[in-house]
């Protein structure tokens, strides 16, 4: 019971810290800051649990496996939230269409209206800009050149895609 409580409280504390910070100022490198907040909360939380005073108060952890248990839960929640956060940070086109059509209710939307909604934000250009920003590719003399990082990403997705019989994305 104690392990469960500590694990949930640490994750909640990390989320609340992130929420307060975001309300004040949204950082430029959002994912990196999120990972830093969650990791720091985990390390400091476990350090506090190892103190004699925490043990005396009934919040001490008894053995290394309990530390690992809290760590696994916290890391799983951190990664899950970071993945979910990517949908907050950058709305997906499909979700944008769904919400916009739902908002129209019984009137619906014409195909042209939906097309215009997405075309305004130049999906391809956005993707290319994001790939350059994330250093997956570099733009050299009007050519997009794959970087070592980009090559690694392609290999991982290609390999797993083949394993699960997936067609090319897009």
């Amino acid at each position, binding site marked *: 019971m104690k392990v469960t409580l500590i694990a949930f409280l640490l994750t909640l504390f990390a989320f609340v810290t992130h929420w307060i910070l975001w309300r004040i100022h949204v950082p430029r490198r959002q994912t990196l800051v999120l990972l830093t907040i969650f990791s720091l909360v985990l390390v400091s939380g476990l350090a506090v649990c190892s103190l004699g005073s925490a043990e005396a108060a009934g919040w001490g952890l008894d053995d290394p*496996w309990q530390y690992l248990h809290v760590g696994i839960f916290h890391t*799983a929640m951190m990664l899950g*939230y970071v993945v979910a956060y990517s949908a907050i940070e950058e709305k997906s086109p499909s979700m944008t*269409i769904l919400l916009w059509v739902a908002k129209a209710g019984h009137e619906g*939307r014409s195909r042209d209206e939906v097309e215009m909604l997405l075309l305004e*934000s130049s*999906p391809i250009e956005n993707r*290319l800009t994001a790939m350059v920003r994330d250093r997956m590719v570099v733009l050299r003399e009007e050519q997009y050149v794959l970087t070592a990082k980009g090559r690694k990403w392609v290999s991982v997705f290609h390999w797993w895609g083949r394993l699960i019989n997936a067609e090319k994305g897009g």
Partner: protein
Amino acid sequence: MPLSWYPIIVLSPVLALATNCAAHVAVARISGNSGPYRAIVRAAIVGLGVVVALTLIGCRRLALPRHDVVSLIFLNSVAYLALSFDYFSFVNLCLTSLRIRMLREIQGAGGSLAGERLGELYDDRSMTNLRIDRLVSGGHLVLREERLYSHKSFFLAIATFFDWLRWFVMGPKADHQGRGWQRTESNI
């Protein structure tokens, strides 16, 4: 708490994730390309069964009280579901990511490709139409007399949840922060 079974309880979310991945590969290879998401859901359920079973067996062996059993099953199941969500997102990128597709195209062309050529291969209009068609064929939108209507679907519920989460996290800045597809009713 005796330690003999506790490491298995601790590692059960990770073991269940490994089972999920293996089961997904097996189901996807057996069923081919028919309904890739169905294979993911089936594998996720197998993994959930594994995490609950391992935790339950471990707790029984350790003769833990009922409240500890319930709390550990809850803790491990939540951790496993978070890990499964990561795996689902990874597979979803394999299946639908435009960015991954473009990177593969560049690699296929020998590691570099002109922006102009990429523009020909992936023009905005055809990509947009592909999204709309996919939503219609998936039953998320209904096309009637040349107009698109919303259809209550699980995906719409997810989109609504993320829209709410975005507002909750970002607050009033929600429409101005972030990148990409930031379009509101007012600026269309």
